């Protein structure tokens, strides 16, 4: 007797392996990292080695008290050594002719700040691995300090709001754009509200890593550090995309393409009002943030429309 198979929603069709993670993992309630990792292991499969550092993802990915919550082999190094350790691994596997998917999985503090040099170095050398940065806009695991990807105005424990303090004074470093400027085979931005987009980019990453370096920047709201409800992370992701605060795009060797366009972007205040770290911002400060979002997107749009002039 044959049972009629129920038609599954589309994103499940991309899963090629079972979830490599245990049922309960030690992330904060509502943290999108858990879903990101489960998807990652289901899409990329178990022939994956994870490389990472002390971070939010560390207890789950890189073990705690010699226990981990998954079955993937992993290499846990210092924040200064992620991209270089991954280089060591892939170079040796290449020497012995073994095809292995090595995935670096780190936060923005590692990728954009202390671990940036080896990241940029590995990209320039076009090493064959995938580097995924989950961007929660600060050092969340050590207690919500600002990083170079923390946006203008955000309150953190090192940019507190006080009598004179108004949150972070500088703008965020645009790391995915910087990585794309290395003209590596593949760079993309992704977030969990647009799951199919994310999965397609992961699959492309796995393919493109055979050509060289791959970088994926995953926008990852932090319920604890940002002051959002633990059931609202995906909603915040969606609003970040709808306001063009976090546009979804990809770049293949410096050729940019928007993978999702928003017909009428909402004002950035629709996004900031969901998040406590922006609550103190005045209209003028919010206007500056809006202006940053606009100019960032305009720049990206130019890049996506860019054609090599014939005269060149």
């Amino acid at each position, binding site marked *: 007797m044959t049972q009629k198979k129920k038609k599954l929603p589309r994103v499940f069709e991309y899963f090629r392996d079972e979830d490599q993670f245990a049922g309960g993992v030690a992330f904060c309630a509502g943290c999108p990292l858990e879903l990101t990792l489960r998807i990652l292991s289901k899409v990329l499969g178990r022939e994956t080695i994870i490389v990472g550092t002390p971070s939010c993802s560390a207890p789950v990915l890189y073990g705690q*008290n010699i226990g981990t919550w998954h079955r993937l082999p992993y290499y846990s190094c210092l924040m200064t050594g992620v991209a270089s350790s991954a280089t060591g691994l892939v170079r*040796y596997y290449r020497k012995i002719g073994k095809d292995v998917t090595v995935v670096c999985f780190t936060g923005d503090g590692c990728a954009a700040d202390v671990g940036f040099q080896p990241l940029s170095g590995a990209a320039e050398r076009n090493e064959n691995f995938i580097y995924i940065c989950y961007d929660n806009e600060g050092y969340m695991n050590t207690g919500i300090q600002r990083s170079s990807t923390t946006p203008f105005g955000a309150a953190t424990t090192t940019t507190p709001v006080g009598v004179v303090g108004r949150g972070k004074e500088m703008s965020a470093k645009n790391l995915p754009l910087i990585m794309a400027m290395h003209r590596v085979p593949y760079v993309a931005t992704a977030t969990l509200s647009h799951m199919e987009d994310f999965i397609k980019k992961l699959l492309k990453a796995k393919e493109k890593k055979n050509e060289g370096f791959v970088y994926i920047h995953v926008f990852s709201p932090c319920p604890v550090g940002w002051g959002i409800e633990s059931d609202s992370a995906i909603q915040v992701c969606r609003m970040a995309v709808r306001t063009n605060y976090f546009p979804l795009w990809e770049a293949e060797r410096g050729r940019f393409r928007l993978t999702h366009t928003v017909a009428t972007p909402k004002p950035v205040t629709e996004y900031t009002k969901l998040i406590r770290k922006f609550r103190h911002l005045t209209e003028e400060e919010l206007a500056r943030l809006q202006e940053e979002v606009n100019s960032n997107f305009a720049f990206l749009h130019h890049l996506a429309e860019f054609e090599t002039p014939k005269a060149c």
Partner: protein
Amino acid sequence: MKVRKGEIKVITGNAAAAYGAMLCRPDVVASYPVTPQTEVGEQLSRFHADGILDAEMVEVEGESSSMNITAAATLAGGRAFTATSSWGLMFMYDAMLQAAGFRAPVVMANANRETPGILAVSCGQQDMVSTRDSGWVLIVVENCQEILDSVIMAFRLAEDIEIQLPVMVNYDGFYLSYLAEAVEIPAREDVDQFLAPLKLQPERTKLVPERPLGCGTHGILVEFMELRYKHCAALERAKRKLDEIDQEFGEFFGRSYGGQIEEYRTEDAEIVVLASGSAAGTARMVIDTKRAEGLKVGLIKLRVFRPFPRERLTQALKGKKAIGVIDRSVCFGWNCGPIYMELRALSPDIGFVPMMSFIDGLANMDISIPHIERVIDEVYAASQGKSYQEVTWIPLEE
């Protein structure tokens, strides 16, 4: 078994390090240029370009990366080599500690150069001394031939299943890195054979896909203390292993260096000078001169700074009347030389005889023949019951 004679070439210390590494067929090589080591990386790249070296060459963007790359490559199961000096060594310090903690059998050549304060682009062992507590095996050598031979022996030691520790081969920057000497380069097949015993050992743990193995973990755990305990035990085992490998190397290639220490005319000596690096060669000459004059003086060349050769030194120095130590670096906070300070810790074992610290040769100051003569004269006077100065900064007190 004595193998065929190798080819003799006049090469620099840096080239000797590169030849030593190339002969051991590393899988991954990563190094960043820094004076006076740069030539090692250049030479290895040339070997690779000429098809002599079949390795993955990584032109890194900094030393921190060269250490992380080589450590990861060894933990994946490979053989890896890097080289650095001075600030480069300091820039990879975090990664060095991790490599040691991971028991990653990396072999690194380090051309000793000064580190702190003004930019002293010159020789000194301060860089190596600054990594004293990194958990690495720190070998110090005297001449270009010993550089080449020690790199080969370092792989045997590092990858030994009972050791599994990173090993640093230190040689005086400028004095040896740029000095060209006649060096016998062993045949490749002979080096293969010398390293072959490693293949007979149980396989090291390897990080490969589909095997749930983790390198590194977080948290507060009793296992951490156990790992530290085992690390210390491996360093202890490395002492005997150094002696054994050195002896085997001698039987194989006809050259040996004494293992942890080399004793020169110490047996009937009443006073002893302890030196390391290229200064040991000068000291040996001065010892001969003084011997000719009837002075019963001997030399100990320290070949390994970590693990500290406690037992061998005790055995060699017991019953001597006075000991002088020449250091090419300083021990901050103790106002003496670091090797001297370590030797003082052996006083209860050796006996409470006069021990004197001589600091010399910092930042390319020559540890000259007159300097060593002065060391011997002062140590001799102390052995005769004369009052003595514990610490002497030789060039400052001429």
